């Protein structure tokens, strides 16, 4: 089922959570809504499910207008951040819940309900846990049960709110891979919310980067990472160095250094360079002179901070630990840096990229982030 979102707006008290969002989601796609807290990603997800009424705009499921459809009628599978499994029901009862609440003749017999539950449990690789209570499951198992329960309604769309937020790193990785496989198997249109850029890039077909209730960029994982449309996207997807430059006649001038660019801009620009796109070059070639301040190795990466000779601004550098240049990185060494890939944006008053505060008075409890449940 494809979904069309047209100019959706939502305001909590006087906090604008969604300020005109347009998005089209293809049938069978796996899409990530990525953004910092308060960017409106969860509100958008909840609006899709019908859990959050919207102030204006339209939500279409296929060709039918779902804007005013009740939560129940939307047939949307929703997996909550803290799973929201029913504590007093066994795993099998949880999964069969949607079948057992059907009205009258459409309700399957209890034998049929049990069969469906074990079928779904097999799909999420938890066969044999039918009789357990949620309190007897690990985080990863709960997540799978929540998914199986959502799939039991044969949803038109599957919505996941921070699906891996409450799990530890190792479990998160396994579950991520598993979710991708499950999606490829079932083919249900899936939207998930995350604030973790790595998660979004690794799992999704397309990524929707959101900030302050707006969509900053929609694109494949390669597009948003390699051609960020706005400084915000550049900054949010990984770390970034900011340099002041100037574009003249198709050339970027950076303190004497001249680099070719196909940018249409002209005049003063902000140059965004990722740490791993700064290459260390020989003293004889063109580049920016700098001096290494500190070096730190984190796993397979060697991270260094260097101060530029001309304005003393600090640059982050990242090299693979097998890179021959990595050995030369010692505090105090003079180096020459060459940006091999960069983004250019018209100069704006330099301010830190700001995100809205986490705590939103009058927002729904899920957004206040003050509850810890498992």
């Amino acid at each position, binding site marked *: 089922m494809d979904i069309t979102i047209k100019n959706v707006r939502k305001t909590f008290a006087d906090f604008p959570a969604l300020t005109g969002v347009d998005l089209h989601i293809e049938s069978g796609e796996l899409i990530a809504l990525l953004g910092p807290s308060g960017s409106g990603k969860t509100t958008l997800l909840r609006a899709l499910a019908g859990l959050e009424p919207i102030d204006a705009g339209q939500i279409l499921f296929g060709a039918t207008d779902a804007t005013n459809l009740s939560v*129940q009628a939307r047939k949307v599978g929703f997996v909550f951040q803290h799973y929201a499994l*029913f504590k007093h029901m066994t795993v099998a009862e949880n999964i069969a819940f949607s079948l057992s*609440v059907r009205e009258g003749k459409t309700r399957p017999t209890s034998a049929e309900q049990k069969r469906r539950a074990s079928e779904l449990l097999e799909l999420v690789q938890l066969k044999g846990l039918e009789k357990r*209570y949620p309190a007897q499951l690990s*985080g*990863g*198992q709960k997540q799978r049960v929540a998914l199986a329960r*959502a799939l*039991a309604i044969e949803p038109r769309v599957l919505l996941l709110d921070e699906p891996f937020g409450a799990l530890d790193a190792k479990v998160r990785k*396994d579950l991520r891979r598993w979710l991708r496989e499950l999606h490829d198997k079932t083919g249900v249109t899936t939207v998930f919310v995350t604030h973790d850029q790595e998660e979004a890039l690794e799992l999704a077909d397309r990524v929707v980067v959101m900030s302050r209730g707006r969509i900053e960029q929609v694109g494949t994982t390669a597009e948003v990472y390699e051609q960020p449309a706005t400084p915000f996207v550049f900054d949010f997807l990984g770390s970034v160095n900011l340099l002041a430059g100037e574009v003249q006649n198709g050339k970027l001038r950076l303190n004497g250094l001249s680099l070719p660019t196909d940018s249409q801009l002209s005049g003063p620009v902000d140059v965004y360079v990722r740490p791993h796109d700064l290459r260390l070059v020989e003293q004889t070639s063109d580049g920016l002179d700098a001096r290494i301040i500190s070096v730190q190795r984190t796993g397979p990466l060697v991270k260094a901070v260097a101060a530029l000779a001309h304005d003393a601004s600090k640059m982050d550098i990242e090299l693979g630990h097998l890179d021959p240049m990595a050995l030369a990185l010692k505090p105090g060494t003079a180096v020459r840096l060459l940006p091999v890939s960069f983004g250019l944006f018209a100069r704006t008053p330099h301010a830190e990229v700001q995100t809205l505060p986490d705590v939103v008075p009058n927002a729904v409890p899920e957004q206040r982030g003050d509850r810890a449940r498992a």
Partner: protein
Amino acid sequence: MSILEDKSLQDPPAIPAIFHGGPLIQTNAAITEPAWVRWLLIAIALGFLSLFLLLPLAAVFTEALRDGFGTYLTALKEPDAYSALKLTLLAAAIAVPLNLVFGVAAAWCISKFEFRGKQLLISLIDLPFSVSPVVAGLVYVLIFGAQGWAGSWFAEHDIKVIFAVPGIALATIFVTFPFIARELIPLMQEQGTDDEQAALTLGATGFKTFWRVTLPNIKWGLLYGVLLCNARAFGEFGAVSVVSGHIRGQTNTLPLHIEILYNEYAFAAAFAVASLLAGLALITLLLKSLLEWRYADQLAASRRH
């Protein structure tokens, strides 16, 4: 990737044996007090408990049986005592279910929805806790009494409220108003609305969500609230005393009957009836313990997070 490597499939760590079936108190010299301090503290706590809780309870039963079992039985068999018992049970039977419905509705409303005037409603629920029961009784006399605002209308239609069963029921309802709501509100606030929203996305109607998800979640808190409410309904003295009129055999509840007997120096009879009231309370407690024992597993499962 083999399933064995998949960390997300792992079972939760088993709970060490000391948490179920092990010694209740583990002694660890580094974090506990010396033995004499521990025993002193335990002795103080136990002494306090016996002096203020156990001793009075025992006294009621010994005093009741002082003149022998025969006198005890006669005091209980007396028609006035019997009718007082009946009236007490009736008042509780009216007040507890009404406050059950009201309490659940109020707690549901306060914990799951945002609306203007919520704080005012919470304060209103607490009103019976802060207002003296005697004042509450007087207010009912003022409204429903012969000279009261609504009294003449009821008198015209030949409905007796004050000095009759309806008045006693009303006073009991007022006094036991907050017990269930107060028990449920913090519980339901802590539980949040995720479970209910999950049920809605799974296609459950509002009523089914309440019946299948909300109610089981608050079951134990609700039971506890009902027991507290019931105990208070049995024992209420002040408000009921004002509205009842103390008509023997008609509008006397057990606490009122005990006071009358006591004032008449019929100590054995007074304590005999008191033991009856204490007995009712003990039965309530016993019932609660039985349920807790019977459903220990469920209780543990719903409390562990």
